[in-house]
């Protein structure tokens, strides 16, 4: 019996420490489920992720196998017997299967490019805001140049130099998208670095690296998460736009922007080829926007309206 008391005491400690956190999570989850916008956004994003991860099992046909007899076959819901739920494209490939596989490109480009932008932007923002002076001046002038350079022209120029392709597209979107992150983080750092706990850390001799990484970065995470979610939506649109112009993903890979570009030619005879990839883009982007809006309300009470 004697040993029981300390044991139960030990068991209590993590319980006490855990309860508020798990309760907070439960509260967040409850708010998420009760918010129709967040729920719809979550479901849309989840669907896109599911499409991307499980495409070989979900796609009814091989996305690259065409059959000329089923060229521009109409969707099966219009009474067409070819058996393509959303119809077929100009070389008889199943549209639904290509849309399911296309989710991979959109999500991969969206997430990877935003991750790159966030890493560059957060680093620049932390350094510029924390050190100030000429470092700040130089970095912010670079940001100005970036803002004054119309993105689409920069993208076209870079693609003309290095050629098109998935990796280059991610690089272009990632490298050009950091300014938003940089500015937000810099602004926050300017305020946070004057706070007492940062001064305290400095007075006990913490290194700049430690102050930035341990005391400042965790406190600027909320706007970064919100901006990342909303930027994924923007970059999915930009990827589709560049691929549509023939400057993005290789045409042989199923991508929503590429499908739209193909379908545009047949708009007067086969409306479905350009329509459904566009719906896929819209729903995925809508999902990330809804999720981003909810996250902003959750994480950043200052921005709540």
């Amino acid at each position: 019996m004697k040993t029981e008391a300390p044991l139960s005491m030990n068991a209590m400690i993590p319980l006490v420490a855990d309860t508020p956190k798990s309760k907070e999570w439960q509260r967040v989850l409850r708010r998420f489920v009760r918010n129709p916008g967040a729920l719809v956004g979550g479901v849309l994003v989840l669907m896109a992720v599911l499409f991307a991860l499980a495409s070989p099992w979900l796609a009814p046909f091989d996305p690259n196998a065409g059959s000329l007899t089923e060229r521009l076959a109409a969707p099966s819901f219009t009474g067409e017997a070819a058996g393509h739920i959303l119809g077929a494209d100009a070389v008889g490939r199943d549209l639904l299967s290509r849309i399911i596989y296309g989710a991979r490109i959109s999500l991969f480009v969206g997430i990877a490019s935003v991750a790159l932008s966030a890493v560059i932007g957060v680093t620049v923002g932390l350094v510029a805001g924390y050190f100030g002076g000429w470092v700040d001046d130089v970095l912010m002038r670079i940001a100005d140049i970036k803002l004054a350079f119309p993105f689409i022209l920069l993208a076209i120029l870079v693609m003309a130099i290095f050629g098109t392709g998935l990796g280059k597209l991610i690089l272009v979107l990632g490298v050009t998208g950091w300014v938003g992150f940089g500015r937000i983080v810099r602004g926050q750092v300017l305020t946070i670095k004057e706070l007492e706990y940062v001064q305290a850390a400095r007075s006990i001799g913490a290194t700049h690296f430690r102050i930035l990484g341990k005391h400042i970065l965790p406190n600027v995470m909320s706007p970064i998460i919100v901006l990342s979610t909303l930027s994924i939506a923007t970059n999915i649109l930009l990827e589709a736009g560049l691929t549509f112009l023939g400057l993005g993903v290789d045409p042989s890979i199923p991508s929503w922007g590429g499908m739209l570009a193909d379908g545009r030619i047949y708009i007067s005879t086969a409306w479905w080829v350009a329509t459904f990839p566009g719906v896929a883009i819209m729903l995925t982007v809508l999902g990330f926007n809804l999720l981003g809006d909810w996250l902003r309300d959750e994480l950043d009470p200052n921005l709540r309206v």
Partner: protein
Amino acid sequence: MLSYVVRRLFHTLIVLFGISLIVFFAIRLTGDPAVAMFQGAGEPSKEALDQIRKALGLDKPLWQQYLLFIGDMLTGDMGVSFRNQQPVLQLIMERMGATLTLAFAGIFVAVLIAFPVGILSAVKRGSFMDMFGRIFSLIGISFPNFWLAIMLILIFAVNLQWLPASGYNGFEYLILPAISLGLILSGVLARLIRSSMLDVLHQHYIRTARAKGVAEWVVIIRHALRNALIPTITFLGLQFGALLGGVVILEQVFSWPGVGRLVIDAINDRDYPLVQGSVLILAFMLMLVNLFVDLLYGIIDPRIKLGRERS
């Protein structure tokens, strides 16, 4: 005020200098214009290539080419297009009208839709109207504009045959491109107007105005909207770059003869002077718009004194 404008213009010059460096070297990395000129005409001899490079001034060292380019730019000479030997400035100006017409028509459509939707959404917060407004704006920002353009062509040009599908031949050719551009922009704009209006509507001076018995529409338009305009206008200024991007894509969809198509063709042709000139002019316009927006603040909100350092 004047010193503020001068300082900003000086700042603009520095940024333009940075852009000129980037575009000058970047376009030279895309490939050799001499080779591009022989595209599809068989393998050119080395002598022929050298001759063309010499004629285009590309045989000089890079730094010398850059100094010549900057020197010419400072005297207002943007050079001559490699491709069709016409002055770059003239080529750009011929196309600029079409691009600006589309851009402003797009903004006009956006303002026409976004202001009523945003204001009503904020004033009737939580109502059916608000829900409609919010869904409208969210869907608006989630569309790719070129897809909307294709759908509009499908409905109004192919099926109903009310409007032309593409070209540039009068007012009816402007309608579909302007709506494609404007609808997307109106989504973002309506969201912003709604949130800025909501911020303002909670202020004490609004309560005071209402308490004084000022008519509700006067409170909304004169007191609330005027103050909600600042973030809205800033945003419109910042969106000008994105708007240009939208215009470039829509110019392709609607065969609209604007600067966007000119630049894309120039990059593909490795037409260095034309690319350099158009990028610099577009960037300069973008910066002028932002300066203009900053100057507008002073008019909308007289409390904002430009040029004073904030402590």
